[in-house]
């Protein structure tokens, strides 16, 4: 790896990371306006045209607020809490593929932070570290509501990690690879010449499981038990100031974006457009780099669709109760995940035998 490689890698990483952070202000306005649309009210529409500058105002307001460190907290862990949530959320995006590759000086560079051969395991492993920020932050706050909120959040996240893993496992079974990039490459073309060869058509049950588990993993409604306002004040971040709350929020939105990116890569064909092969597109466009831009636009559009679905579901479906949540995970999703693995294995066996 020479110097130009290193510089391009650093720039690429920075661009992808900063791009993922931009999800946060965008989602702020989409969520607030979306909620207003669904609840039939105007929503924030004063700051700038159509209220588009609302996120800027929100961020400035958060920064200018007073920093409060409550007197009874366990200071070191209390201050570390938000960062401990943000770090794993930032690291997970390394495995997401945003496109095939672009070329600089006739040398190809992948449109992905790192092409990790154990991609899906990496995502599951690093993604599971996010709970420590919640646990330590909630415990260090030294408040009943915080501790209860943290415990609930953790129980929920760890319970839904197993269905998530089982769904990912059946995807690995289907594609025969851990690498998300290779999964996307396999999804090119059509199934029986009619429908796109996407994971969602080959693994419908797996996608459903992954979709439900993704909501629970990101603590979104209908699974936002950790911060049930009526019971737990604000959950694990009761004692945190505005900017720390902002950091937790940022991590939540980045996790949502990562989950959307995973769903796109594993089940919705990644950078492939339906029915059009990459080679044909390259012929039409004539240039590798224009194709790369088109691929990035495709992936981002698909991700944006899932983000809108997140908002839509949030304001449509009411919240579960805690025992219902646990029953859903252990009694329904885990047996279904195991069944899906057996089903996939048997189908692959029959396909191989035929």
């Amino acid at each position, binding site marked *: *790896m020479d110097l130009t490689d290193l510089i391009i*890698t*650093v720039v*690429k990483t920075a661009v992808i*990371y900063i791009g993922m952070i931009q999800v946060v202000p965008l989602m702020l306005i989409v969520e607030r306006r979306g909620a207003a649309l669904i609840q039939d009210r105007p929503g924030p529409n004063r700051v700038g045209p159509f209220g588009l500058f609302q996120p800027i105002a929100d961020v400035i307001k958060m*920064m*200018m*607020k*007073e*920093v*409060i*460190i409550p007197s*009874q907290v366990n200071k070191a862990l209390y201050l570390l809490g938000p*960062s401990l949530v*943000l*770090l794993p959320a*930032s*690291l997970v*995006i*390394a495995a997401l593929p945003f496109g095939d590759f672009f070329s600089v000086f006739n040398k190809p560079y992948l449109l992905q*932070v*790192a092409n*990790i051969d154990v991609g899906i*395991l990496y995502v599951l492993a690093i993604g599971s570290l996010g709970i420590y920020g919640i646990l330590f932050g909630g415990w260090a706050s*030294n*408040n*009943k*509501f915080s*501790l209860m909120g943290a415990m609930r959040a*953790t*129980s929920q996240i*760890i*319970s839904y*990690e*197993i269905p998530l*893993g*089982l769904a990912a496992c*059946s995807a690995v*079974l289907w594609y*025969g*690879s851990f690498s998300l990039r290779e999964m996307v490459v396999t999804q090119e073309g059509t199934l029986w010449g009619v429908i796109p060869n996407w994971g969602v058509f080959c693994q419908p049950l797996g996608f459903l499981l992954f979709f439900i588990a993704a909501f629970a993993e990101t603590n979104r409604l209908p699974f936002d038990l950790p911060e049930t306002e009526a019971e737990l*004040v604000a959950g694990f971040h*009761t004692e945190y*100031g*505005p*900017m720390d709350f*902002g950091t937790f929020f940022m991590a939540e939105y980045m996790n949502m974006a990562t989950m959307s990116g995973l769903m796109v890569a594993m089940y919705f064909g990644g950078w492939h457009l339906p029915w059009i092969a990459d080679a044909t597109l390259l012929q039409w466009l004539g240039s590798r780099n224009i194709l790369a831009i088109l691929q990035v636009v495709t992936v981002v559009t698909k991700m944006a669709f899932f983000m809108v679905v997140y908002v839509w579901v949030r304001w449509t479906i009411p919240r579960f109760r*805690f*025992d219902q949540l*646990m029953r859903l995970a*252990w009694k329904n999703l885990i*047996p279904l995940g*195991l069944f899906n*693995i*057996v089903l996939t*294995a*048997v189908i*692959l*066996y029959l396909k*191989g035998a035929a």
Partner: protein
Amino acid sequence: MEAFLPVGILFILAIIISAGLFTVKRLLGPRNPVPAKLAVYECGVTPESSARIPFQTGFYLIAVLFLLFDVEAAFFFPWALVYKESLAEGPALLIAMLIYMALLVLGLVYIFRKDCLKLN
């Protein structure tokens, strides 16, 4: 292993962003601590008892079951990786996994029978 170098770069960037957020809030926000403001929040009244809550075994059981099932699920991954290639050698791997999964399902059935996961 070289593939993880960009992850290291990303890690450094993430640390910079977290540290930046940390300093920004320290620099911009006013500081005016008052004892009442710094007290523990309990819906506006003085805290009744300490934040210690009785240990609920339910949480422990969830964590233990998660641990055991996570270990079992982790073993599905290497199997899933080589399953497709091993199909040419007959259904040996499929049967091996079915036995493994039967034992796992037995565990699940035991959990449902005992019904220990009912919280509240």
